[in-house]
């Protein structure tokens, strides 16, 4: 079997006496859409930040693309994309300036960038907005643009932290079609969401409860195993069993 794209082993993070993430282990495979779910405070964001090298673990190990995230951080970062929930694009810069800025960070050349900007504008139907400030775009467009910017350097893996929070039902679906397209091109997608219908669009989902992995499987397998009709019911049963407060 081929090496997993992400290999998490006994990953742990303590803040003082509080164990936010408690010895979690799992693999993410090439090209899959991996859903990472959990209640607020379950340790999801802490785990994700350690997996993409933004936070140092207390113990345990993460390999991304066969590289150790702790010692080969820079080499990993060049090959991954990250879209944070709160901040992804500079509101005061135009669409073109944002794309150019991020492209510059990843060392993309001028010609390559020109192509990317044209491609991106066409894909989003943003041709006449390319020199408008990002702050003037509706949230749904911003999120789609942020995603395309996060994958413009053709990373092997992209991490998306609640990319569809607060987005209306139609735009959420358009966003997921962009995710599907990226996955078809072989990009591995690691995504968190609070929408349980979106959990269904993942190849596999991992549900965190109290800092541990409470379930990890294909959505349909989880539904069948637990005798539930929907992922909402699956999640509700697992997350409600949480012991720790905050």
């Amino acid at each position, binding site marked *: 079997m081929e090496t997993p794209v992400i290999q998490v082993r006994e990953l742990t993070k303590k803040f003082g006496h509080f164990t936010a993430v408690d010895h979690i282990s799992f693999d993410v495979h090439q090209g899959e859409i991996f859903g990472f779910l959990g209640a607020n405070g379950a340790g999801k964001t802490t785990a994700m930040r350690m997996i993409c090298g933004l936070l140092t673990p207390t113990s345990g190990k993460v390999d991304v693309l066969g590289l150790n995230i702790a010692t080969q951080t820079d080499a990993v970062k060049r090959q991954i994309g990250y879209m944070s929930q709160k901040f992804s694009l500079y509101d005061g810069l135009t669409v073109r300036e944002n794309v150019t800025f991020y492209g510059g960070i990843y060392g993309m050349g001028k010609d390559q960038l020109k192509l990317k900007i044209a491609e991106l504008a066409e894909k989003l139907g943003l041709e006449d907005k390319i020199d408008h400030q990002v702050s003037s775009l509706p949230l749904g467009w911003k999120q789609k643009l942020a995603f395309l910017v996060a994958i413009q350097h053709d990373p092997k893996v992209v991490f998306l932290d*609640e990319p569809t929070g607060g987005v209306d039902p139609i735009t959420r679906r358009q966003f997921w079609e962009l995710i599907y397209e990226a996955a078809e091109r072989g990009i591995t997608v690691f995504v968190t969401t609070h929408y349980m219908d979106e959990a269904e669009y993942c190849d596999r989902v991992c549900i965190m409860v109290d800092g541990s992995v409470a379930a990890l499987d294909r959505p349909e397998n989880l539904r069948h195993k637990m005798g539930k009709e929907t992922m909402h019911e699956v999640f*509700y049963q697992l997350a409600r069993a949480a012991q720790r407060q905050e």
Partner: protein
Amino acid sequence: MEKLISRAPAVKIQQLRKTYENDTVLAIKGLDLTVGSGELLALIGPDGAGKTSLFRILATLILPDGGQVEVLGYDVVKDFQSLRLITGYMPGRFALYQDLTVLENLSFFATVFNTSIEANYDIIRDIYVQLEPFKHRRASQLSGGMKQKLALCCTLVHKPSILLLDEPTTGVDPVSRQEFWDILDKLKADGMTMIVSTPYMDEARRCDRIAMMNRGELLDISTPEALIDGFGKPLYAIQSDRMFALLQDLRKYPVTDTCFAFGEAHHVTFKKSIQVDDLRGYLQMQGHHHVDIAQIQPTVEDCFMDQLAS
């Protein structure tokens, strides 16, 4: 519902207009809306629909450009001072002081309204007991669900007569959302009038009526039951072993009208009545296995998408 409307309305909006940037951006165009006393109204619509502008006008934070808006008998322009004392407004973005503790935030909001936590403890008790274990924690250190409960607590501390909640559960997990709505149900049972915007259609389903906005206009306002009854065409849930390819193949099917991913199945409507076996045959030809086609009841989300797509 009839009963709620026949009482004196809590909110009466007539021909409301709001523009920005020297009239170039039309946020609300000629909106008419009445909200009954004690009603729980859901406000739904895509970005730019005008929901937040409407909230800010009702909360007397911005002025309308035209039309009449009355809240609990007060004019939002002339009587803004009286109105502010009886309105509870929770803005979409977290509206608390991050570097103050839970207790400090609550005391602050109580003081601003010239009251105290103790004076109105009965209205916040149910929420406050959940926050109490963390009362000395800074707001920035709370989880998303707890932040929103604290924000609601601060919105209630002066015992308002109407609540305006702008996307209170965005970014909140399903379990905390459920808890938040259980609190709203209790407030409703005590007679509170509430207007709540939400991107979650399961939440809209729990309200007395749903107002759907798009581009500054009211597309529809009705009870969830009437909205669903009004869908007016057969809706199918379709599954196969290759769901993304299925989405594309269904869209290529000549009589497909709308086709959206809906969790474990795709929801599809057709321009004319279809033979299920024909469709199954077509999908099998495209290489799909385990094709399942079932006619289903639409949900509020189906109705929302249908309205916006048309």
